[in-house]
């Protein structure tokens, strides 16, 4: 189980006209990822979801807050001692092209971490090769075909599977998939999603899924939790299917309304929410962060910041003063 309390992170712009300007990437985020669970972060680019994912994978530092991995608070350890804990959380990058070293064969790529592990645990050399084949088979690849090849000789989908196999070499507790299918061909995406789901079920690996495409988040499992993040804050949180079918925060509703409708197959939702696009970047931080773009804002929203919480009316948590269910999602047309 991995938890985080009140994680904050501020980036300072370095060069250029914006030098010195601070960007608040995360404004106090809490999260809990149960063992073997599935959690999805969704939001627009720049909302902080990727930063949060990288922090969880130990690839980025955070300014304040606490991350606890299997009961061990990271603040109690010195940076060097944190590494083995963060190693149990492996990142699957968005771009399988740059995630594999183009000058090394897949065999070499898998060999390095496995050899390291064999050395640490006193396993024989032969284990390394057996394990490499086992892992490739596990992610649905033919070891005989894949092992001697270089990354450029594989398709995008195969490469992403190799990346997943490599992450599995360290027996991770959790995989962080950051837009892991957005660069994969449409016809192959579902295969990767199904693989992640399968690994969850078979190995008990928890999956953190970071995406801007809400529909893909569903494919991790119907018990998954969804975090909707806006400008560094979680604004709605709950079961994936609950939020998709009955979102209450206007931002979630606008995200869902924006998903293209496959006319002919689907009927658009009755009450789409179209936010004003943030074309001028002058952010204001008082009150609700979404207020300026929200079609339903009131005076209260402009002055008072809402807090993420639960009320009796809705099953999910939300951070909105005026939560209301709206029918925004396209429904499949029944055919018979």
């Amino acid at each position, binding site marked *: 189980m991995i938890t985080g309390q009140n994680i904050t992170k501020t980036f300072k712009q370095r060069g*250029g*006209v914006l030098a010195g300007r601070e960007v608040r990437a995360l404004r106090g985020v809490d999260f809990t990822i149960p063992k073997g669970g599935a959690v999805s972060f969704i939001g*627009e*680019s720049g909302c902080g979801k990727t930063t949060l994912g990288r922090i969880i994978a130990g690839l980025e530092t955070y300014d304040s807050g606490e991350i606890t991995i299997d009961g061990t608070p990271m603040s109690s350890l010195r940076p060097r001692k944190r590494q083995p804990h963060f190693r149990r959380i492996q990142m699957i990058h968005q771009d399988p092209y740059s995630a594999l070293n183009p000058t090394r064969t897949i065999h070499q790529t898998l060999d390095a971490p496995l050899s390291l592990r064999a050395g640490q645990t006193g396993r024989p050399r032969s284990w390394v090769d057996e394990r490499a084949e086992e892992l490739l088979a596990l992610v649905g690849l033919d070891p005989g075909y894949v092992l001697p090849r270089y990354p450029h000789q594989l*398709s*995008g*989908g*195969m490469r992403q599977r190799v990346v997943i196999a490599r992450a599995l070499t360290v027996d991770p507790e959790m995989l962080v998939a950051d837009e892991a299918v957005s660069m994969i*061909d*449409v*016809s*192959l*995406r*579902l*295969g990767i*999603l*199904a693989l992640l789901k399968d690994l969850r079920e078979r190995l008990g690996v928890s999956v953190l899924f970071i995406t*801007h*495409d*809400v*529909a*893909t988040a*569903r*494919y991790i499992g*119907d018990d998954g939790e969804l975090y909707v993040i806006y400008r560094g804050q979680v604004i709605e949180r709950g079961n994936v299917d609950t939020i*998709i*079918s009955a979102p209450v925060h206007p931002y979630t509703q*606008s*995200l*869902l*309304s*924006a*998903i*293209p*409708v*496959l*006319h*002919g*197959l*689907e009927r*658009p939702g009755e009450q789409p929410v*179209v*936010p004003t*696009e*943030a*074309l*001028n*970047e002058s952010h204001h931080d008082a009150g609700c962060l979404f207020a300026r773009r929200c079609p339903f804002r009131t005076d209260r929203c402009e002055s008072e910041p809402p807090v993420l919480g639960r009320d009796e009316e809705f099953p999910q948590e939300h951070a909105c003063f005026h939560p209301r269910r709206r029918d925004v*999602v*396209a*429904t*499949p*047309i029944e*055919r018979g």
Partner: protein
Amino acid sequence: MPTTENTAARNAGKTGNAGKAGNTANVASAMKAPGVRVDGLTVVYRTPAGELPAVRGIDLELPAGTITGVVGESGSGKSTLALSLLNAVQPPGRISAGSVEIDGLGDVVKLSGEDLRKARGRHIGYVFQAAQNSLNPLKTVGKQLLDLGRSHEIEDLRGLVRDAKDLLGRMGMDGARVLDSHQHELSGGMRQRVGIMLALVLNAHLVVLDEPTTALDMITQANILRIVREVHAERGLTTLVITHDLGVVAEVADRLAVMYGGRLVEQGPTTDVLSAPRHPYTQGLLRAIPRLLGDIGEARALPGRPPTLGTVPARGCVFRERCALRMDVCETEEPPVVVRGPSITACHAVAAADAGVDTDTTAGTATAGADAVPDAAHPAETADAPESAGAGEPAGVQGTRGEQP
């Protein structure tokens, strides 16, 4: 010329009828929308293994005043097709066969030098893939606009700037401010709007958008697509959208063309193709797209992987290796073109299914297409025909997507 005007005028009426353009001014500007006929287009790339076709035998008509969406995965040749419309295929690629007839411009494949350069921009606007990054980082948008005007020998640069401001204003931005900005001061969605402005400001009436929304957020994407639709109607354009995302096409396009391995495998009115896809690839693609509601178990990845330039079969059907309906004949014979109403499919299995039911099915090889688009009288309804709203009407009259049930 008279023919062109006739077509355009006819089309203007149709656009109006379709309810897309609301007022008379729009109808007036719609008179300029050109039709485009791509005939037997083949583009080959020189590789160490010889010349390989990235795009082969494409027959596609873009009826004047419509939005056509071309969907394909990586390596399907969709971007090459888009570049061919401008005759802008770069070496080692070249157009080896076929023609691209644009009303008022003639066969673009035959143009070269100055004529071609002038045609780009004035007749054909192109919004490049990753337009978000195609601006010059060192110059303000305004300067780049003036450069564009000068290179096309525009006398009235003030007028050009005015038009640009109008267009930007139309897309929800402060024109003056944007023209004074550098690329890095604009967000992705704003840059994409600037790209669309630059493509339209010289009054081009044929617009090609290559992956207009990749790397944009959902909400920005929805807004850009809305803008594309509205500007298309207001200015009376013929628009081609190239994308890997069926959702994008579903949102904007009247007609949908599906590419695979350099071939057009299916085309027709968007709603028809989406509600009743005929080609096994289109069917598989639709099944592979994760949806928000409905049974999660129904979604299925397509087995296999898309072919690359080197692995596309030289003979027979390009999709056969991933196809569930594969037959022996797919190995050797080019798939026949099956025309049903306004829809065209290239598939042996579809042809075989139709042959059993409907003897009237046109099963030509390869060259059916633009001129084979059936006239209104074509009796193509069969027992299992989709209840397509537009069936029986010429393609150009197809109403906007999403307006019929």
